[in-house]
Structures are given as structure tokens and as C-alpha cells.
């Protein structure tokens, strides 16, 4: 189930994404001026949704090109997925001159997207090296250091919340024998945001070739005044330089060299932070500095009363996007307003921090008609022009129709404590005046004995009928079974007849009936014919049928009495007849209780 929802969500997402296809390609080079023995870092970033192809590189035949790998950053903003792929290259110039690197391009869905051109100037050896680096490389003894750390700011004077970029350069001309342990500087009076990736390149400084690792951080001062940036520190185990060694076995030095741990620091930096001008400062200015624009869009322009409309406010631009305050939405008479969601996406293009911040507001119309969601404004201070600026969205017109559901009870003055509700809105329906089947909480009907009995009895009835039916079928189809089942009944009937005969002094008939009752019972039980059977046969059958000996003995005795009585009836007294009848009944009861097989 969850998998189905996930697949559905992904499909829906892809539909949304495909509807909003937007691909952007950018190309940056740093630095833009280098010496002939230095390198420049070329970065091409492709941003968009979906599966993006690799960019087509421009003609770079005037350089040796070394790929520095790719990096991918995926973000989901407001439900839509966006990915940024960065392709990094190191350019090694072959000759001096000014080179225009043509636009990089990408073909996506049969459409070509192009970046801007960039220019790289290649000077004579050493000329492109910044003076600060040359100075930092020099030791107090006038020689070049093996390793050093340099901190630089791109500006000396900024406004509060304006970006200043701190660059820490770690330069080393000897091999590193361990991972550098870097401690960034303290920047307590700034918002800081790392600008990645780190850059690595080679640079010729004072005639010596250094490997440079560059770490950039965007800083936004939080107060005015002269602010300090602390020292950055780095510890690393390096190969010791053998240039001045007189050791005759110095040639093996590098092999046996265990290295030396060196700790290097930057100089603390100071920066002057100006307060934001008070002149022409808007009344509701919230401290946003940079350059921004704001747009708005509604998810629908036609709705019904009480049906929500989601308006998305998108603020984009350069500056500290994290501190951009949400737009001020005034209470409106025609709408109830709720905050739904907010999200932000930060971008760092060409070492400038910017991005997009999205706020979603839910507007629930209170009445029908053509209603307007008014424009929303954003004030910011632009440090480039040194002026405050106000940008606004456009008003959104919503066509609101009366809701179809209008059967609320017509009672006045809806009143919900602590909630804002329009006087024209309907109220809840009135309470129920009848308590209904108000009763002690009952257990579930499924678990009550009544329910179980009620459902169980018909099952028992069906079982009973089925058993009866089966028995009936057997009685009609299985003669042996039928005779066996009826044997007792018939025997009792015959004994009853014998009793009557005894009462009427018909001794011979009495004994004949007794005899036949016993013969017929055994024959019925064993499904054999009683006709023509003599006493010895009956006794033999009883022995073969595993009937107990005492029953056989009793039967033998009774049969003897019957034989005797039949041939000399006058000698039998009434008492003897009674005893014979009792004996016959006892034999039948015993036979009934024993298994005859």
C-alpha cells in the first residue's frame, strides 16, 4: 500500500516537474588573471529538474585541461525536485594572452541552453600573482616559506548584513605527510556560510611553485562598527626542506624523512561595518540587505466560499536569504488567512550568496463575489546603490462562488471563542434535545453471548437435520443396519406378545414366542435369517459373535426350558413362566449392552 502511494507520488512529482522544466547553465572562472605558470579553475554548473545531460565544453585548445571531478546537489523546494551538477576543470595555460572562452552549452528536450562567455588573461610568469601572496610567502629572513596560511577579505568596508567573502589560502611548496588539521577563524559578529567546494590549484609565488588550497566563507556582519575576524590555524606534518643540508647521505633524506609538524596561523583581520542609513528608511523595514524581487501565484483563481486558495510568495535574489523576513500579510475582511508552509533554497554563484525563499499562505474566502488578494511588498537595502528599495507582487483576483452546501441551521451570531469568524458565516447545527439511546456503554455485539447463541443454534439445527437425514438414508439403503437398529424394538414387541400368551395360559405358544424373540433378535443383529435355525446353531452363532459366556449360558438354559415346555406344557407352573419371561428380558437387556459382531 505504502509502495503504491510512493510510486503514485513519484509519478505525480514527475508530472509536476515536467510541467515546470527550467534548465540553467552557468560558467565561472577564477581567478580571471593568472601567470603563465599558474592555473585557473573553471566551473560549469547545470541546474534543472529531471535527468540532465553533460554540458558541451567550449573550445579549450589553448589550455591543458584537467578534470577536477563533478558534484551534484539535489534539493526539493515546494514539492518539486531540482538538481545542480557542477563540472570542475583546471586550466593550465600554454601561452600568454587574453583568451575568450566561448559559452558552454547543453541540449535538453531539443532545446539548447547556453552559459555566458568568460575571459581569462594569462600574463608573464609571476606577474599574475597577487602581492599579498608574494608578501605572505616571504619569511623574515627574506626566503620563501615552505608552507603558509593567508586570510583575505574581498571588501574593507560593508554595511550591516551585506556579504563579505573571507578567503583562506593554504599554500605549500613541500609534500604533506599528514592530513592538515584546520581550525577556522572565530567570526562571532557574523552570520557565516561556507562556499563550497574548496578550490585546489598551483600558483607560482616568488619564483617557487606552490600548491594552493582555497577555502571561501561568506560572512554577513550582524552589527555595525569595527569588527574582528580571528586567526585561522592549521597544523600539518610536512617534509623538511633539504636545500641547506650538508649531509652526504641527503639523497636518502626523503626516504627516511619522518617530517616535521608545523603550525601556521593567519593574521587577524579587521573590517569596518557601516550601519544602514536612516534616511528614507521604510517604516516596516525588517533588515533585508541585498537585491531581491518578489512574485506571487495562486493555485486557483476560481473557488467557493470556505474553500481554500493557496498563494505562493517567492522571494529570490542575492543576499543573506536566511534573514529575509516573511512578507507582511494584513488581515483581510473577506478572507481567513493561515500560514501553510515555508521553505528556502540557498545558492552560491560566483561566490555570491543568494537563493529563493518561498512562503505559502492559505486564504479561505468568507463570502462570494470577485475578491482581491492585495499586493504584498518587500523592502530591502541595496548596498550597491546604497538605497532602500520596495518591490511588490501583483494583486490576485479570485472569483468566489457560493458554496453548494448551505443547509446549516439558520441561527444567528456564530461565536467561536478565540477564533476569527465572519458574521456572515453559518454556525454549527443546534444540539440534540433527545438523548437518543442513552445507555451504559455496551460491549460489542459480536462478543455478546446472545449473538453467539443466536448464530450457534441454527448451526446445531443444521447438524441435527443432517445426522437425521443420513440415518434415514442408511435405514432405507442398508438392510443389515436397518435390521440391527430395529432388532430390539421387534424383540420387545415379541416379549410383549409372549407376556399376553402367558396370561392366557397358552404355555406352548408363550415359549414359542420367547424362543422366536431370541432367535429373531440375534438374526437381526447379525443380518441372517432366523428361519430354520435350531438352538445349537443359535448358541454357536452367539459363541462366534463373542457374546459373553453367562449370556450364552442363560440363553441355553432358557432354550432348554422352552423345549421342555413345548413338549410337556402341563408341567410348567405360572411361576416358571414368569421366571422364563424375566430371564428372556434380562438376556435381551444384556445382549443390547454387549457388542455383537
Amino acid at each position: 500500500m505504502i509502495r503504491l502511494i510512493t510510486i503514485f507520488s513519484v509519478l505525480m512529482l514527475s508530472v509536476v516537474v515536467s510541467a515546470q522544466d527550467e534548465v540553467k547553465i552557468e560558467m565561472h572562472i577564477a581567478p580571471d588573471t593568472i601567470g603563465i605558470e599558474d592555473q585557473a579553475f573553471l566551473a560549469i554548473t547545470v541546474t534543472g529538474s529531471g535527468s540532465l545531460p553533460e554540458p558541451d565544453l567550449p573550445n579549450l585548445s589553448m589550455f591543458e585541461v584537467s578534470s577536477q571531478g563533478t558534484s551534484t546537489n539535489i534539493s526539493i523546494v515546494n514539492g518539486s525536485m531540482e538538481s545542480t551538477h557542477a563540472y570542475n576543470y583546471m586550466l593550465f595555460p600554454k601561452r600568454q594572452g587574453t583568451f575568450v572562452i566561448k559559452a558552454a552549452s547543453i541540449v535538453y528536450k531539443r532545446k539548447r541552453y547556453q552559459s555566458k562567455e568568460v575571459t581569462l588573461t594569462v600574463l608573464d610568469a609571476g606577474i599574475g600573482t597577487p602581492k599579498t601572496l608574494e608578501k605572505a610567502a616571504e619569511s623574515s629572513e627574506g626566503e620563501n616559506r615552505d608552507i603558509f596560511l593567508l586570510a583575505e577579505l574581498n571588501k574593507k568596508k560593508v554595511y550591516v548584513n551585506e556579504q563579505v567573502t573571507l578567503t583562506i589560502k593554504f599554500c605549500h611548496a613541500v609534500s604533506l605527510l599528514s592530513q592538515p588539521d584546520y581550525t577556522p577563524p572565530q567570526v562571532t559578529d557574523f552570520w557565516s556560510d561556507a562556499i563550497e567546494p574548496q578550490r585546489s590549484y598551483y600558483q607560482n609565488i616568488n619564483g617557487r611553485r606552490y600548491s594552493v588550497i582555497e577555502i571561501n566563507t561568506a560572512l554577513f556582519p550582524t552589527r555595525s562598527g569595527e569588527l574582528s575576524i580571528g586567526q585561522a590555524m592549521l597544523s600539518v606534518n610536512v617534509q623538511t626542506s633539504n636545500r641547506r643540508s650538508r649531509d652526504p647521505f641527503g639523497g636518502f633524506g626523503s626516504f627516511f624523512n619522518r617530517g616535521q609538524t608545523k603550525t601556521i596561523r593567519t593574521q587577524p583581520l579587521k573590517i569596518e561595518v557601516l550601519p544602514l542609513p536612516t534616511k528614507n528608511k521604510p517604516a516596516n523595514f525588517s533588515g533585508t540587505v541585498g537585491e531581491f524581487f518578489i512574485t506571487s501565484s495562486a493555485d486557483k483563481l476560481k473557488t467557493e466560499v470556505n474553500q481554500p486558495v493557496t498563494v505562493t510568495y517567492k522571494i529570490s535574489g542575492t543576499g543573506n536569504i536566511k534573514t529575509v523576513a516573511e512578507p507582511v500579510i494584513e488581515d483581510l475582511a473577506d478572507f481567513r488567512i493561515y500560514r501553510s508552509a515555508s521553505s528556502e533554497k540557498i545558492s552560491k554563484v560566483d561566490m555570491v550568496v543568494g537563493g529563493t525563499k518561498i512562503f505559502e499562505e492559505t486564504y479561505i474566502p468568507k463570502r462570494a463575489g470577485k475578491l482581491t488578494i492585495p499586493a504584498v511588498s518587500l523592502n530591502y537595502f541595496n548596498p550597491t546603490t546604497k538605497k532602500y528599495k520596495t518591490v511588490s507582487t501583483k494583486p490576485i483576483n479570485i472569483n468566489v462562488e457560493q458554496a453548494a452546501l448551505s443547509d446549516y441551521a439558520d441561527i444567528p451570531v456564530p461565536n467561536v471563542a478565540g477564533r476569527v469568524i465572519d458574521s456572515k458565516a453559518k454556525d454549527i447545527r443546534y444540539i440534540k434535545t433527545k438523548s437518543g439511546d442513552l445507555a451504559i456503554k455496551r460491549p460489542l455485539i459480536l462478543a455478546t453471548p446472545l449473538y453467539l447463541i443466536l448464530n450457534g443454534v441454527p448451526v446445531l439445527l443444521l447438524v441435527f437435520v443432517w445426522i437425521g437425514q443420513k440415518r434415514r438414508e442408511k435405514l432405507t439403503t442398508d438392510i443389515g443396519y436397518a435390521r440391527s437398529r430395529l432388532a430390539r424394538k421387534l424383540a420387545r414387541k415379541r416379549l410383549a406378545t409372549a407376556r399376553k400368551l402367558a396370561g392366557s395360559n397358552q404355555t406352548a405358544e408363550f415359549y414359542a414366542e420367547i424362543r422366536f424373540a431370541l432367535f429373531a433378535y440375534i438374526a437381526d443383529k447379525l443380518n441372517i435369517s432366523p428361519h430354520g435355525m435350531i438352538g445349537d446353531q443359535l448358541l454357536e452363532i452367539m459363541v462366534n459373535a463373542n457374546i459373553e459366556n453367562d449370556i450364552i449360558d442363560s440363553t441355553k438354559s432358557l432354550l432348554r426350558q422352552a423345549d421342555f415346555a413345548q413338549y410337556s406344557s402341563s408341567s410348567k407352573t405360572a411361576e416358571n413362566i414368569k421366571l422364563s419371561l424375566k430371564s428372556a428380558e434380562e438376556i435381551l437387556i444384556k445382549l443390547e449392552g454387549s457388542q455383537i459382531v
Partner: protein
Amino acid sequence: MFKSTLQVLLILMVLALSSAYGFNTDSLFNSAGNYYQNQDYDEALKIYLEIEQKSYESAPLYFNIGNCFFKKGKLGYAILYYLRAQKLSPGDPDVETNLEFARMFMPTRMEGIKINPVTTFFDLIVDSYTLTLIAWAASVLFILLMLYLSVIMFLQWRGLVIKIFAYLLIFLVFVSSGLATYKYRTDYMTEKGVIVADETRILSGPGEDNDVEFVGVFGLTFTIEKETDNYYLVLFENKRKGWVLSGDVEKI
């Protein structure tokens, strides 16, 4: 003799007590209604809750408690009691209307997407009826089937019409029993709840030191998957999951 006399006496006592209680709760119910009419929602609510605390329940009682909470601005509790009323009397138009009206004040809704056509169809049928009604319907059909099978067996009825009717009854018994089982599983085997606090944090684990996944608002319903001392692991309708403080929610 003595035993049967004792049984009769006990039955009479139970009847007398139950009638006395019935009278009492009805009069309490009516007096709460009067307070409500005079817009004294606090007093009305107090009496309704008193009745509920005596383990009495009915859809009108829960509906009226919901109304009192609504008037007091406690919309989370209002939605809770409307849902309890809906459980006892599904399809009641008053309950449906007030529930929907209260939900209009919710800042966010988390409605799930119903993809499975079978469960969607089952929901469509069972949502309008109580479990008791569905269970009785299934029971009546089952008893009819048993009696019918007994009769045709006993009287040895044969014929196509007899067979068709038997299969029809068997089919109806299966459907009604299936619906009763489904209703039982969804309404009673699965514990459901609603957020009653205005806002509550949905956490990644049972404890304050866990990350906040998102903020839930009053009226959001969920199923409870696990319980610890103070937290529930809950699954919302849109399949988002997290831990919520048990004091901020109520079981329906």
C-alpha cells in the same frame, strides 16, 4: 422455590435501579440542554461530561458535548466528540455538518489518497452504518441460510431455483460477514485518535530530545501504531508517521 423467588427479586431490583438511573440521566441531559440554550456552555458541558463519566454514551450526548467544546473554542475536542458521535451514528447529517464545519477551521488537513479500489469500495459501504447494524444483518442472513439449508435437507427439496436461492444466500452471507469483519478491523481493532491540542510537535522518536518531523494541528486524525508511557507512534492519513505526546491527543 427459594432460588426462583430470589431470581425474581433480583430482576425487579435491577429494573428499578435502571429506571431510576434512566430518569436521572434524562433529566440531566435536559437541564444541560437548557444551559446550552441560555449560552451557558461551561455549565452545559459540565453536565454532559458528568453523564459521560457515568459510562453512559449515545450519539446525541457526544454531539452535544462536541457543540459545547466548539462554542468554547476548543475545536480539537469538538472534532473528537463529533467523531465519537459519528462512530455511534454514521451518516447522521447533523454530526456530518458540524464535523465538516469544525474542520474548516483547521489550518492544515492531511488527507490520504485512496488508491486501493477494494478498500475504497468497502469504505463507501461501511462508513454509513454501525458495526452493530452490519453484524446483525450478517447474523440474520446467516440464520436464514442455516434454516434454509436445514429445510431443504429435511424435506429433500431439489431443483435449480432451490439451488440458486441457496447460492444467493451463501453469497450474501459472505459479503455481509466480510463487511462486518472489515468494519471491525478498521473501527475497533485499529486504535484511532485525534489531536486535541492547538498544536503539537510530531517527533522522530518518543522523547523531547528527538527531531521535530513537523507540527500537527488540532483535528488531525491518525491511527495509533505503538504506545509508550507518554508517547504514541501515530500514522496520519497522508501516511506521515511520528511520535506524539499522549497528552496532546485523545483516542476516538
